[in-house]
């Protein structure tokens, strides 16, 4: 199969859906000629024109609000939010408006919009350009949340997002834009709420989201050398969450480490770990381990930043410990 970058995968998904459906359009800062600072959208304005690929002023609350209204009236907007950190600016329009419209109107109105943005640290972009804020939106009923972990997922989930009748927030890992993966030429969509078993294993389940899937793949290789067989489950979407696949895996391996790049406290690892703790309780041979980003703003200095996110070595070490029963006394 051909291999393309994550960036190209997103671009293809959007282009295909825009060709298919005239009501789809794109808006955001420097999305047209510039194709975004990450160049993900290059070429789209040439094909679809400035009427459908719209450069906006630096007015995130404004254009997200407009997307909500456009979506309520027959359009399918895709909003580009340049950095995930800017979510804080649009929370009212996203969480008080978009998320609640279907429910508050008793199903009479709906908001089929996509907010595409990113996550991920270690790019030396400091505290306001490095956050992974997907847990926040996942907490708000009415929003779906997709976390593609490779070019393949990026394409398949984006197409599904655009066709969904609800607001979907899709977080791309900004460090992965140039990473290549096999992506079919033929059209395909990936369903929401269906986890992917990235790697089969017997001894421990690594539940990994987005950027952490690669980290866990490397961790699994390290573990392999120690004779530990790790299974990796990538939920792909955290709302809806495919609890069954995760639980089945843990019931099989009896051990779990949940790895996510958001801050650890009150984040995604808590949700998944507590569901495992509750629903696979009698199958667990060791306490479920959580590995999120440190509970600190992301520091600029390379000497500090790299300490804040889970690494393959750290994941392998932690998984190794529970497999060897070394964390007994801590609990």
């Amino acid at each position: 199969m051909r291999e393309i970058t994550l960036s190209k995968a997103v671009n293809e998904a959007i282009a295909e859906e825009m060709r298919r459906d005239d009501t789809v359009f794109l808006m955001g800062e420097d999305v047209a000629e510039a194709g975004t600072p990450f160049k993900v959208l290059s070429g789209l304005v040439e094909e679809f024109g400035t009427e459908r690929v719209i450069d906006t002023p630096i007015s995130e609350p404004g254009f997200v609000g407009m997307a909500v209204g456009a979506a309520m009236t027959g359009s399918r907007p895709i909003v580009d939010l340049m950095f995930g950190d800017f979510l804080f600016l649009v929370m009212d329009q996203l969480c008080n408006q978009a998320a609640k419209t279907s429910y508050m109107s008793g199903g009479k109105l709906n908001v089929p919009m996509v907010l595409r943005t990113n996550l991920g640290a270690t790019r030396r972009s400091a505290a306001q350009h490095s956050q992974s804020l997907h847990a926040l939106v996942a907490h708000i009923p009415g929003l779906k949340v997709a976390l593609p972990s490779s070019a393949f997922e990026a394409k398949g989930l984006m197409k599904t997002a655009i066709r969904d009748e609800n607001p979907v927030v899709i977080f791309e890992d900004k460090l992965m834009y140039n990473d290549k993966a096999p992506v079919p030429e033929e059209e395909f969509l990936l369903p929401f709420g269906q986890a992917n078993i990235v790697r089969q294993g017997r001894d421990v389940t690594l539940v990994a989201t987005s950027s952490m899937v690669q980290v866990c793949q490397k961790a699994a290789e390290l573990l392999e050398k120690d004779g530990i067989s790790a299974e990796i489950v990538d939920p792909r979407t955290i709302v809806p969450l495919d609890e069954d696949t995760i639980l089945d895996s843990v019931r099989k391996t009896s051990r779990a480490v949940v790895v996510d790049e958001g801050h650890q406290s009150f984040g995604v690892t808590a949700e998944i770990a507590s569901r495992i703790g509750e629903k696979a309780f009698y199958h667990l041979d060791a306490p479920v381990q959580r590995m999120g980003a440190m509970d600190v703003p992301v520091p600029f200095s390379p000497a500090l930043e790299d300490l804040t996110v889970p690494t393959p070595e750290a994941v392998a070490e932690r998984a190794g410990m529970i497999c060897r029963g070394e964390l007994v006394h801590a609990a």
Partner: protein
Amino acid sequence: MAARNATRNASRNTSKRATRNNSDAYVRMYRQMVRIRAFEDNANQLYLSAKMPGLTHMYSGQEAVAVGICEALEDSDNITSTHRGHGHCVAKGAEFKQMFCELLGKEEGYCRGKGGSMHIADQSHGNLGANAIVGGSMGIATGAALTAKRLNTGNVAVCFFGDGATAQGLWYEVMNMAALWKLPVIYACENNGYSEYTKTEEIAAGSITARAEAFGIEAFEVDGQDVLAVNDLTTKLVARARKGEGPFFMNLSTYRYHGHHVGDINRDYYRSKDEEAEWKDKRDPITNFGKWLEDEKIMTAEELVALNDEVRADAEAAVQYALEAKYPDGSEVTMHVFHEPA
């Protein structure tokens, strides 16, 4: 660009002389204003007699704004509404029964009881909903206009909001985009002089009208108690907006008769009884328009009374219906979080 003062007292203008052709329209406007007043009087009673749960904000006094504007619109045109939204909802064509059912949280309400007073919406008439976030619908209205322009539907969107809402930064962001892209949206500021318990002059610096103008938006100041002045101006602006000459801004002076919300009874500390009396006695949009209809011989005094009685009876019947209507089944609580394709 100086704000245009739409002719005050346009109703006394000869060009407004009734003709066979538009007398139906006049009666309809009158009826719609009376319907709003009747709706609110009943809602207020329901609340005061503890039959209606939650928070609600009365529109009484501002009827000429909603009616003057909505009568210049088609069903397919969109409006967005506010926390003080019953008037907009009625004016855009909603029915009493579904509205009262919604206010009481009943299954037959416009939103199956899930929205209530502050979120009442009526998609069938283009009302995208009331909003409990002050200014929260400014983006929505502007986005509806973006759909209209992009998909060439010919629709116009009207964004209703209060003077207090002009303090929300969102407005400036969307005005900028509406102006840049010439969107068919009309920003209608219902300037009733107060934000909750504070006079707006204490919390708004400079000129609200000039703020819209600074974005290159044509702006108008109009007497919001004069339904014909409002309707006239809106009719012109809607036609121009459909031709791509929008956006526009209207600053409509008006007054709310009740407290900020139904529980706001002792208002002396922020506004005087005299001021209230002045507006109610001299500038009531319904009374004054009724007199004009009589003067112009469009309706007789008896006809006016009959119309009022009929509307009041309708409203009371709807209240009765809603009181007896059933609540949604508990199973509905998890429905509609996500919208599923039909």
